[in-house]
């Protein structure tokens, strides 16, 4: 409208080659990659030891549990079992916690930029998956050093990826549900904190199923009900695959292992509905 000649010698206009813009699917993938990288970089950059801390924290926890359990329950408590349980539990806890803040923690982004909102919990879970896979290497070493029967690695090459996929699907479902709930309900964080503590004791992270025999020996339905908690068969599954232990098949374990998939479908539907109004509530 107004003709004003501005010659900006310090900043000549950039070469007029048009920018290439990815089609939506490719752009979403690229953004997911970037978000995961951001999550991981930010997590490991804060401290000098970086990644080492994600390794050391559960490891220390496992050692502490083992020491106390040996005092309380006797010398049969095996470190490698606790290590496997605690690392897998940590994967879920971290997914829940980062899922919880996946949307609210990126309020600025959600309010001001248009992009597929589902990427937020997916990126949070994916970053935790990467951490978990890295800790898995350490678990292999520990298990290799400690496993007495030498039977580990028996069938894991087939079963482990599938179990990790199922575990990840479960974590993603939780991250989506809680991430969306946290936008609308202010007390989600507190309830989740309480829930996680209870859940920790209801899942075989720092103990194995033999501990339950006292109660379940006479009441088999109790074991089945216990196993309907997806984390129970998942954590037990890791031990079964890595240590060659028997897996407690039954309707409880079947329900527990199947549950993550409908849960993920439901979480996806809830999230899709909820995300429409994210920007209004943040």
């Amino acid at each position, binding site marked *: 409208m107004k003709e*004003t000649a501005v010659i900006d010698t310090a*900043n000549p206009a950039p070469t007029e080659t048009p920018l*290439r813009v990815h089609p939506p699917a490719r752009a979403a993938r*690229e953004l997911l990659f970037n978000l995961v990288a951001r999550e991981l970089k930010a997590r490991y950059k804060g401290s000098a030891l970086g990644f080492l801390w994600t390794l050391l924290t559960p490891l220390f926890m496992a050692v502490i549990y083992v020491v106390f359990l040996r005092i309380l329950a006797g010398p049969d408590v095996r470190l490698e079992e606790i290590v496997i349980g605690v690392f897998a539990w940590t994967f879920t806890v971290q997914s829940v916690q980062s899922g919880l803040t996946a949307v609210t923690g990126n309020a*600025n*982004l959600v309010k*001001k*930029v248009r992009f597929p909102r589902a990427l937020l919990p997916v990126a949070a879970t994916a970053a935790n998956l990467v951490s978990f896979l890295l800790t898995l290497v350490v678990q292999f070493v520990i298990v290799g050093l400690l496993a007495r029967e030498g039977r580990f690695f028996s069938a894991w090459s087939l079963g482990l990826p599938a179990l990790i996929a199922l575990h990840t699907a479960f974590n993603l479902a939780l991250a989506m549900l809680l991430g969306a709930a946290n936008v609308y*309900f202010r007390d989600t964080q507190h309830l989740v904190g309480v829930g996680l503590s209870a859940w920790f004791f209801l899942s075989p992270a720092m103990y194995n199923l033999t501990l339950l025999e006292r109660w379940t020996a006479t009441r088999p339905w109790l074991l089945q009900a216990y196993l309907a908690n997806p984390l129970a068969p998942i954590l037990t599954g890791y031990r079964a695959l890595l240590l060659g232990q028997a897996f407690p098949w039954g309707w409880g374990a079947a329900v527990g292992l199947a549950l993550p998939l409908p849960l993920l479908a439901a979480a996806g539907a809830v999230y899709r509905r909820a995300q429409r109004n994210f920007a209004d509530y943040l």
Partner: protein
Amino acid sequence: MADIAISARDLGKCYRVRGHAPPTLFGALTGLGRRRPADRFWALRKVSFDIPRGRTVGVIGPNGSGKSSLLGLVAGTISPTEGAVRAEGRISSLLELGAGFHPDLTGRENVYLNAAILGIAREDVRRRFDHIVEFAGLREFIDQPVKHYSSGMYVRLGFAVAVEMDPDILLVDEVLAVGDIAFQVKCLDRIRDFQRRGKTLLFVTHALQTVEEFCDEAFLVHRGALVERGRPDEVILRYLRSYMGEGGMIFTQEFGTRDVEIRGVRMLDADGRETGIFETGRPMVVEISYTARRPVRDAVFGFSIKTGNGMYVFGSNTQILGLPAARLEGDGRARLSLDPLTLMQGSFILSLAIHSSDHATQYHRREDWYPFAVRNPTGTLGLFHLNSRWEVPDV
């Protein structure tokens, strides 16, 4: 229709307002917190418009009138409750300055992340990276975590990324007021560059001067409705006249003893017609009708003019001009002529005052009371119109 960049049909956005207590998950799960019917608040309703490609539109209106909701709807960050909005082409919004910057990552990492959010290919960002950094003026800081940046640096980097992404539609929400003067000038240059390249711009701002200067068209939004659209000077004038003092940018005041009261003011153009829009280089006349409730022997008439942005332009009174103090009695009329009007294109606000010559008594003062607009058909440029004459040898 191919030339429409943004089109909205019966667009509406309704927010639910839920008293003091926010909903709780505990309540929702246990059914303890019974659902109270939520109050509804329509931030925007029944808004329809088409913006042709290449046009720059300024959205003005009082605070809370729905301007930012409108931008959010166009940007697609908030979903309409009813109606629809369509934007053709890639949108970059300067409402997202620094959005998505992660404090722990370096400037460099954040630039790539930001570009990914906008869907730009990584290699293309790499090619323009130096230019982005140069524009933001952050060469020595680019590998520092952005949490160590000052707020100005943060915004500069955000702006640099946003404009370098070469969008078809640029949405700007009041962000040009940040950064130092040098950077603001750079930003405005870059926005002019956008206009030259035929991009579509949608502005939200309270800086009316900026709307005057940059926009082809202005939208006046009030209480969630698109009240008026048209030439910026006309719309701004309407805005100033209708909504001054309503939480807007202009704080009008009136005070004085009212011994002499300003009853009415008429603003007249060269032909003696009452108007709010004047032309540079032509006369502007202000007629003040007053009533003196008691005889006054020492009255001084004064006026001042500010720009729409509140910058003081000029002030004078009859005393400064060396006129004798006026004796006023009963009804009367005073005339103020500005001939020729040397203001350039823009929105201005006139204040009027009648006070005693010793400045002890303010009879009646209306501060920031009378808005008017100036159009400049002469084609001259600059801050003021200088009455210039050339004598050039005729060979």
